């Protein structure tokens, strides 16, 4: 057993040196295709971040009539707080007249006419409500429900925006996950393809080995090891590439004005590490299994 193993290892190393062209080709292919896979994973995650942040920005404002009674106000507040499953109570915020007026000054800063119409007496106070759900139907029915409460002047809902982001979110997620999976399949096909070509180039060798009395596994193990190492080497290269890309990306994004949402496109390091580990595993498995299967094709001599 031990000499079989040592044979397999020596064999693998020797084969690497002697079939440089083929080995390098296999490593390049795996590196390139795994890099694509890794990049899509990062892009997917970046979009996810961005959309999550956008969605977090979408809220509802419940305007309270300026002439509301304290009881009615209390009732509204109580009503809002009674639904912790639906709205985010921790983010629930009440702006009284002074605060509402201050915010209006800010919001309408560029619009002095509207501003001139507002006064601290006539301005409605407001509750800022952040729904927990992302289902637009639910949010809408919630808004309608609040509209009927006594003392409520109206409910403002960024409905359209909400709709778009919600749909876009699902859509982008589907597309990017789909793309990652497709590229994964592509990577596996390309790696397998390259290894198959390389083994095809060595089919005479396999034939001779069989004629000298080698069992299928004796022949296959060095090939599998070789494919595994090639896949792993390719994955390592792709990890280096991915790391470089991500660094460039992170520092590129850092150059953006904060608050534009673009900074959400930075992917956390832990996720990047996870992707790298996944790439290593995929490379090794695709390489090993690929060459196992490919070599089997020429074992029926």
């Amino acid at each position, binding site marked *: 057993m031990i*000499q079989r193993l040592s044979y397999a290892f020596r064999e693998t190393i020797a084969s690497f040196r002697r079939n440089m062209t083929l080995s390098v080709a296999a490593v390049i292919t795996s590196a390139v295709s795994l890099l694509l896979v890794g990049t899509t994973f990062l892009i997917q995650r970046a979009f996810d971040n961005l959309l999550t942040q956008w969605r977090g920005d979408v809220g509802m404002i419940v305007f309270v009539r300026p002439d509301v009674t304290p009881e009615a106000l209390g009732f509204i507040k109580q009503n809002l707080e009674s639904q912790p499953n639906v709205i985010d109570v921790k983010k629930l915020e009440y702006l009284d007249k002074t605060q509402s007026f201050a915010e209006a000054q800010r919001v309408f800063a560029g619009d002095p006419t509207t501003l001139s119409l507002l006064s601290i007496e006539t301005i409605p106070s407001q509750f800022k409500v952040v729904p927990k759900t992302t289902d637009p139907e639910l949010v809408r029915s919630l808004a309608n429900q609040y509209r009927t409460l006594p003392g409520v002047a109206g409910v403002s809902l960024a409905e359209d925006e909400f709709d778009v982001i919600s749909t876009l979110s699902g859509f982008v997620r589907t597309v990017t996950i789909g793309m990652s999976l497709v590229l994964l399949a592509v990577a596996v096909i390309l790696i397998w393809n390259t290894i198959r070509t390389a083994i095809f180039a060595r089919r005479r060798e396999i034939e001779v080995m069989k004629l*000298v009395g080698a*069992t299928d596994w004796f022949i296959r193990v060095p090939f599998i090891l070789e494919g595994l190492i090639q896949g792993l080497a390719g994955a390592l290269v792709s990890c280096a590439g991915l790391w470089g890309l991500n660094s460039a990306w992170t520092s590129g994004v850092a150059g953006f004005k904060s608050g534009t949402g673009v900074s959400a496109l930075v992917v956390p390091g832990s996720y990047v590490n996870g992707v790298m580990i996944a790439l290593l595993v995929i490379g090794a498995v695709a390489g090993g299994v690929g060459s196992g299967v490919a070599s089997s094709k020429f074992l029926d001599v």
Partner: protein
Amino acid sequence: MGAPPIPALIARLVYFMIRLENVSKMYGSELPAVRDASFDVPKGEFVFLVGPSGSGKSTLLRLMNRQERPERGNVWVAGRNINEMANSQIPFLRRTMGNVFQDYKLLPNKTVFENVAFALEVIGKPKHVIGQQVPQVLDLVGLSGKEDRFPHQLSGGEQQRVSIARAFVNRPLILLADEPTGNLDPATGEGIMGLLDAINRTGTTIVMATHDHRVVNAMRRRVIQLDRGVIVRDQERGVYE
């Protein structure tokens, strides 16, 4: 004529190291390369296969290690019908026989040493045994000092001798040699024949296809002559005609 009882059958088959029963082999729709060939080779015998180019000598040898399977008839080796053997058993069959191929079939990416060692690696011989036996065998065929060359760095005759060394390094029961002196000068060829003779005397059964009438005439062993796939002569202590 009734079938012999099983133990007797086995005894007979074991006694005959190789036995062909009405074997025919055709490639595609061509004329048969071997037609209705039958003969027995007892353990320890030395047999020459002779005949013109294309008469079926190599095909006969390929039938004996199941490189080819016959369309008709049976091939028995060491008491087993190799045509009915499971694929998984074939490597073990081949390990009992050494093969000198007409086109050498060396592994191009292995050195001379590794090529010969391969036959020992396959049967799981430990490293120190390999390190001892391979140089010894290479010395016997006159290739000392060329251990680290690759096949393409050898002359034709040197490659042929690597193939011979690989064939008997694991001391097989049977040695199938296809034209093993075809690329050797007479002196070297005689050396190799002396070696094969010595191996044969240790009990190894040898079947050798050859065109070399000098060798056949000098050795005076059994000669099976083929002509267009048909056995036309099977003679003890024969000569090349």
